[in-house]
């Protein structure tokens, strides 16, 4: 399979299906500037970041375990969530058409955007038609993914984030580093500094008390809610059956945003659709428990089209592809689209815990980001794409799979993406080494010879029998770990030797003696605790 690097039509002939388009190269925030190991190098050196992250992820982890543990049917809920999402992906086109029909019936307008460029243009046009030059935003990873704020700014339209954490990130001219807690890498003192510097007219005596910080942000935002005519939101769910959109949040700023402006534009990734209204029963239990460790999130807002005299009088839904059908077209990779963006996998990931979200270079960091980002935006081997380092940014420990509320097998997907990457990347030194290793290991005679050669590794080993420096590319390993020199004798040669045979005989005799005297197997049950 070749990697799609250009527009979908390139190289397509009549009668041949086009490769589904990925997010266009060089747009939005689905690609960092450096590979994961390079970006991680800088983040690992930031002690403050490590402390902030360690503290935050450990506390959310504990809360999540407490609230998922108290549900007797948690595992069934996970299975149900997984089944509903799988069913959704299996008939996505049909459900999206149903959603469009229902939204239209209820007075909304549906727009289809193949990629971020199209979505940005649609939103810009809609805002411009109102004559506004500022908008409010809430809860949208999709618009972060496509770089909407930057695009609007280039067109003279100012976008203000109203989610507290996103506001912090925006004021600091920073980038989010977590799906749910975008400012997880900042502590209270840092936030106080940001507010003092960037919120106009803020009390100079502001301290770092969370309630006071929130109040300062609220005062600033209230003013904006009362005066801004257009809002852009994301959506946690879109219900095909009824045309209802849903946003869940903690602060209530989202509800202000969704109800006060005259026009509401929702940008939703096409994978967020759910078949039935009743499906919310499952996901409104799974999502808050997995993400914030709460039984319920404080605010759940649902809206269906337009209600005359109540709320925004104009509603637009922008359905965003941006690489999603490419992911859907991949038999194995499509499971990643089941993600409900809860961030449970980030909070349990030992790699994320050390490097933080910026090292992933994408709107979607952590384990699910390492799977989703390369699928949405591709891994362009020829361009030395940082995204091709993401599937390797995991030790495959599996904690993410255990935590995922919809049971996405992230480790297997990472291994699959690694496979796709090596298949696409032509002949590399690594591939040659892997081929050579397999060639040796498939021939037991050669393997035994190689083991003997490895025994020569004893020579450079020191008196303590360890190797402390290894040549590239193994020097990263040997910078912090000693390696034992291969012992003189392999297991197989010991087992085949007279010494090995004698040891095995002695063990069998010892066992037989014990079985005669005092059989250990019989007293086993008392030993358990």
């Amino acid at each position, binding site marked *: 399979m070749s990697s799609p690097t250009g527009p979908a039509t390139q190289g397509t002939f009549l009668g041949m299906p086009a490769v589904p388009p990925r997010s266009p190269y060089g747009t939005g925030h689905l690609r960092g500037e450096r590979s*994961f*190991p390079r970006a991680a190098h800088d983040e690992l050196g930031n002690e403050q970041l490590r402390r902030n992250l360690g503290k935050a992820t450990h506390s959310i982890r504990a809360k999540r375990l407490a609230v998922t543990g108290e549900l007797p049917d948690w595992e069934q809920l996970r299975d149900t969530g997984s089944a509903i999402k799988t069913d959704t992906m299996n008939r996505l086109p049909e459900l999206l058409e149903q959603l469009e029909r229902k939204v239209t019936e209820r007075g909304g307008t549906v727009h289809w955007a193949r990629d971020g460029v199209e979505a940005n243009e649609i939103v810009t046009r809609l805002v411009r038609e109102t004559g506004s030059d500022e908008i409010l935003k809430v809860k949208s990873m999709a618009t972060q993914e496509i770089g909407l704020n930057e695009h609007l700014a280039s067109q003279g339209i100012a976008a203000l984030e109203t989610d507290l954490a996103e506001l912090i990130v925006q004021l600091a001219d920073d980038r989010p580093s977590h799906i749910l807690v975008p400012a997880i890498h900042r502590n209270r003192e840092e936030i106080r500094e940001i507010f003092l510097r960037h919120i106009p007219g803020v009390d100079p005596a502001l301290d770092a008390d969370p309630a006071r910080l929130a109040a300062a942000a609220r005062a600033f935002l209230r003013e904006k809610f009362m005066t801004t005519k257009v809002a852009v939101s994301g959506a946690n769910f879109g219900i095909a059956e009824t045309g209802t959109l849903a946003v869940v949040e903690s602060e209530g700023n989202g509800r202000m945003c969704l109800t006060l402006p005259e026009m509401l534009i929702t940008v939703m990734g096409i994978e967020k659709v759910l078949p039935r209204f009743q499906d919310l029963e499952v996901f409104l239990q799974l999502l808050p428990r997995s993400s914030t460790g709460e039984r319920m999130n404080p605010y759940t807002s649902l809206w269906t089209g337009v209600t005359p005299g109540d709320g925004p009088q104009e509603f637009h839904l922008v359905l965003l592809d941006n690489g999603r059908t490419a992911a859907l077209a991949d038999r194995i990779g499509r499971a990643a689209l089941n993600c409900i963006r809860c961030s449970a996998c980030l909070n349990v990931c*030992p*790699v994320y815990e*050390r*490097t933080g979200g910026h090292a992933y270079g994408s709107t979607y960091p952590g384990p699910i980001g390492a799977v989703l980002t390369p699928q949405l935006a591709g891994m362009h081997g020829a361009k030395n794409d940082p995204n091709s380092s993401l599937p*390797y940014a*995991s*030790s495959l*420990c*599996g*904690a993410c*799979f*255990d935590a995922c509320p919809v049971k996405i097998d992230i480790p297997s997907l990472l*291994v699959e993406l*690694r*496979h796709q990457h*090596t*298949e696409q990347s032509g002949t590399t030194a690594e*591939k040659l080494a*892997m081929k050579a290793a*397999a060639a040796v*290991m*498939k021939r*037991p005679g050669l*393997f035994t010879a190689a*083991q003997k050669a*490895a025994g020569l590794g004893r020579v450079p080993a020191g008196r303590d029998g*360890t190797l402390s420096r290894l040549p590239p*590319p193994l020097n*990263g*390993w040997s*910078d*912090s*770990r*000693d*390696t*034992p020199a*291969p*012992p003189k004798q*392999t*297991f*197989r040669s*010991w087992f085949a030797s007279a010494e*090995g045979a004698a*040891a*095995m005989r002695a063990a*069998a005799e*010892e*066992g*037989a003696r*014990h*079985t005669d005297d005092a059989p*250990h197997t019989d*007293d*086993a*049950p008392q*030993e*358990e*605790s």
Partner: protein
Amino acid sequence: MRIALFATCLGDTLFPEAVKSTAVLLARLGHDVVFPPQQTCCGQMHVNTGYQREPVPLVRNFAEQFGDPAIEAVVVPSGSCAGSVRHQHEIVAERYGDAALRAGVAAVRTKTYELSEFLVDVLDLTDVGAYFPHRVTYHPTCHSLRMLRVGEKPLRLLRAVEGIDLVELPEADACCGFGGTFAVKNAETSTAMLRDKMDHITGTGAAVCTAGDSSCLMHIGGGLSRIRSGKRTLHLAQILAATRTAPHVLTEAAR
């Protein structure tokens, strides 16, 4: 029971003591231990690094060497290699294999066990007659824990060891940072994970950190050796194989 031992390429070459202990232990428990001499490697390193075409001959060789119906069980002193046989061989065979390979893989995977699983689930043992009078802490390796779900089995075996002072490892289920080629490709992140694991181990005051995977122990032991911690790592099989008549002499780790 006729048991075939899969030594694993790493165990055979770098950590033969762990494999010898496994063989001796199974013989002491009264079993007929065989070593199919044409065995080499399960191919886990290939699959985990992104190569599924290259290990096809390895998967085929494994199925051939251990496919003999006279072999009642294949025992592996490694959670990750047992996991590879159980889960990855199927993926490789589905993608690149023929019907014969798929059938061979399916036949072998159901009788392949990690050591602690085999002792507890198949042999129904918790006390294997071991003697190890030292303070020990146990690190549950990720693949044992989450791919094979061995759970408390290794701890039940360890608790039954005579003379042992078993101490709990804080944040035991956190990955040590090895992850095969992850430790090379993302060496610095891996080191940061290793540092926390080593802090937890030294904090327990244990003389020995044990686990069911030589690869994770190579990583942890390599780190402990580099910082001259005085602590050492030992495979679970080496503790379970030690007896009063043939005790394990705990050599002092490099200082």
